[in-house]
């Protein structure tokens, strides 16, 4: 089948209609010397030669598997069981397009329903939608949804220690709305006590960008007392071990689902997860798949509550998202099903144990100190020499020690954000500590 269905006769007719003799004439505004430049490409190569060349280029990349990897800051190195790609890559599933037509897509729709069900349990929420592009856009959509629920309230409270790139996305999404984004420092509880009637929502990051896990007990009550909504952006792996945001009264929960079965892949494609209470479901963006029964009582799955969405509500819809992150969501579904509740808890426990072991070692190195003790898998250490310099030296030794905070905060030159997951062996953690000691001696 031709990709462009126009025939020569169609093209002639279109050219005649606009009074142009040839397609080339349409490009006359481009200087002729620039129109068909010599590209100077080398001769064609055989498949074998191309593979050799590309593989030699690829071999220059450092991957998390070929070094001791302690970098997190939004993309996390977790184990992906082989069953995840093996099933997700099957022809029945592998598509850039998410087919929603129930007559032909029961497999896809059932997978989405299972994803929603498991994510809802993990978040402690009534409903989860079929997903968003990534954690940052999911959070931005949650804030838009809160705004749509109470449009006269225009203040949005976000933590100063929210991921800086999430803040950028949030500002972009809200740039066309008359709202003020206010950053609060410290714990969400103190921010929640000072809210007034102009506040639309309070966002808590659980944990925050610097790894701190704030106690969220009582925050929801304080936020609700001011008539605002409480949004929690969570690390979904941490929720295997910690109390869910739903249990703590959150109205909306968002998360980055990459760490559940998806590779870091240079930063994407990722998975935006979003859950809401039953009360808010009619304002929720995105697709939602529901369980239904046909006239013979057989179970099936269909899109539901569609009247929320753009194709029906037009410009009055809360969001214009009308697809989901199908394949990445599928990987997460299979991952959660492979791990189960106990498996996810074990992963979370390993992250906790290993990161606290690492923090214990690093805190003892002269000149180093760990910023907090309430963290899950990521923590900031103060360094005796510039963190960027330490990082460069360690990368030369096959250890990627984490993120120098100066990348986002130029003035914070002596701080390193270190992430330890179940993937890091004791040998690697010991190597990290001894290397940090050696390069700063």
């Amino acid at each position: 089948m031709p990709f462009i269905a126009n025939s020569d006769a169609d093209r002639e007719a279109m050219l005649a209609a606009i009074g142009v003799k040839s397609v080339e004439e349409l490009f006359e505004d481009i200087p002729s010397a620039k129109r068909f430049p010599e590209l100077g490409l080398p001769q064609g190569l055989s498949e074998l030669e191309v593979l050799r060349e590309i593989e030699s280029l690829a071999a220059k990349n450092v991957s998390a598997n070929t070094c001791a990897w302690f970098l997190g800051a939004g993309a996390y190195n977790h184990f992906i069981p082989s069953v995840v790609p093996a099933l997700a890559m099957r022809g029945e599933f592998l598509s850039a397009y998410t087919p929603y037509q129930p007559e032909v897509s029961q497999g896809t729709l059932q997978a989405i329903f299972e994803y929603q069900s498991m994510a809802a349990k993990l978040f402690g929420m009534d409903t989860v939608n079929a997903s968003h592009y990534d954690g940052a856009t999911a959070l931005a959509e949650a804030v838009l949804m809160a705004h749509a629920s109470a449009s006269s309230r225009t203040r949005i409270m976000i933590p100063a220690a929210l991921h800086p790139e999430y803040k950028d996305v949030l500002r972009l999404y809200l740039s066309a709305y008359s709202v003020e984004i206010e950053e609060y420092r410290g714990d969400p509880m103190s921010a929640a006590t000072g809210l007034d009637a102009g506040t639309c929502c309070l966002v808590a990051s659980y944990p925050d960008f610097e790894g701190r896990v704030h106690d969220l007990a009582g925050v929801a009550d304080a936020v609700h007392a001011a008539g605002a909504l409480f949004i929690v952006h969570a690390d979904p792996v941490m929720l295997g071990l910690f109390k869910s945001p739903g249990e703590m009264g959150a109205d909306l929960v968002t998360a980055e689902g990459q760490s559940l079965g998806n590779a870091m892949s240079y930063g994407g494609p990722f998975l935006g997860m979003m859950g809401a209470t039953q009360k808010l479901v009619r304002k929720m963006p995105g697709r939602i798949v529901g369980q239904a029964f046909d006239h013979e009582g057989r179970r099936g799955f269909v899109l539901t509550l569609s009247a929320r969405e753009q194709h029906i509500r037009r410009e009055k819809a809360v969001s214009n998202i009308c697809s989901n992150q199908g394949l990445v969501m599928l990987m997460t579904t299979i991952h959660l099903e492979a791990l189960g509740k106990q498996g996810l808890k074990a992963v979370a426990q390993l992250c906790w144990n290993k990161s606290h072991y690492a923090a214990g070692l690093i805190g003892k190195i002269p000149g180093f100190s760990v910023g907090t003790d309430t963290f899950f898998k990521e923590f900031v250490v103060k360094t005796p020499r510039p963190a960027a310099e330490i990082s460069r030296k360690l990368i030369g030794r096959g250890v990627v020690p984490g993120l120098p905070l100066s990348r986002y905060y130029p003035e914070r030159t002596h701080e390193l954000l270190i992430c330890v997951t179940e993937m890091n062996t004791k040998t690697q953690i010991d190597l990290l500590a001894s290397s940090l000691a050696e390069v700063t001696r």
Partner: protein
Amino acid sequence: MNIDKNAHYNASHEWARKDGTEIVTGISDHAQHSLGDIVFVELPEVGKVLKKGETFGVVESVKAASDLYMPMGGTVTAVNEALSGDPALVNREPFSGGWMIKYTASSPAEWDGLLSPESYQAEAAKE
């Protein structure tokens, strides 16, 4: 199409009827028929102050979602709680059991600016 002779109407198909000192509002029989099976009605909180023409809620049917507009301005004193469990009441009894909100009118004179049953019927028949 059925019509309530005691009510006045918005061109956008909401009706208003005097009920003692208050105004009751819902959507017309013509409107419920065009919308089809109604599955959800979103209503405002009691105490909310709304101007004439402002959105007071949303009605969702299996094929559309439509905003609901105040025929007259006022302060909401009651909403029809029965609609949360049985939204199809709007289909069955648009002028009685399917009422949506009650409110005290802020400018009672707005009543006279609404369409009479006859004019509304003529307008709706054109659609």
